[in-house]
């Protein structure tokens, strides 16, 4: 892995600028090991983060910051997201389309 990936936090700054997340209910698709998710997940009211990789989700659980206890991590993919109609304000595809 790089010694430092995006230490300037450019990616998360552009995400927040593109779509304010405060108070929103967000589906984070392709969270992987949580490296990017944990940079923004403290902002929304509710976050569901999904990824098909169990090992990556285990890493995400281990690295979850205290401010992100409200984030639900689940093994799922975008083809069959297990959520009711109209249940999210934002769906974020982070390197997953």
């Amino acid at each position: 892995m790089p010694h430092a990936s995006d230490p300037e936090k450019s990616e998360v700054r552009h995400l927040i600028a593109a779509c304010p997340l405060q108070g929103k209910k967000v589906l984070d698709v392709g969270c992987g090991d949580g490296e990017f998710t944990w940079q923004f997940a403290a902002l929304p009211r509710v976050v569901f983060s999904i990824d098909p990789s169990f090992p990556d989700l285990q890493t995400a659980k281990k690295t979850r910051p205290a401010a992100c206890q409200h984030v639900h991590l689940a093994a799922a993919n975008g083809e069959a997201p297990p959520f009711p109609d109209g249940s999210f304000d934002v769906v974020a595809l982070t390197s997953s389309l």
Partner: protein
Amino acid sequence: MVHALKQFWRILAPNGTLIDLRPTCMDVDLLIQSKKGWVSAGRVDRGELRLHDNAANRTMRTVIQEGLFKKVHFTYFLTRHYWNDLEGLRTDTEGSWKEDATIAEETWQRARSLLGTGSGEDRICVPVRRKITTYQKLTT
């Protein structure tokens, strides 16, 4: 992928926002920090991503044409990735970045040459160009 986007349309609230954030397939420079500042050792070929990028773009065009989403905004930006040595970069280009980046042997050689001229605190950087696009859910 079209099916997945239709699922995201289904679970979004009316006027909800879909965000597509991903790296682009544009080639970038392999930069070495030397006494002269950041110097390019050559290009990092990201052509392997082109097919995937094109397929993703076609998918989005399809759901826009079907009236499910409208594009609201997009912008490009850079994220920078740093290594302390070429061995670390080579490990990644042969591992987790294997499908994302190819570096020609002459670029490796120039990078090694540039590193030798530095202060001993050289760093290696690959700036990756990304695109973020926001879409609004449309309802009939």
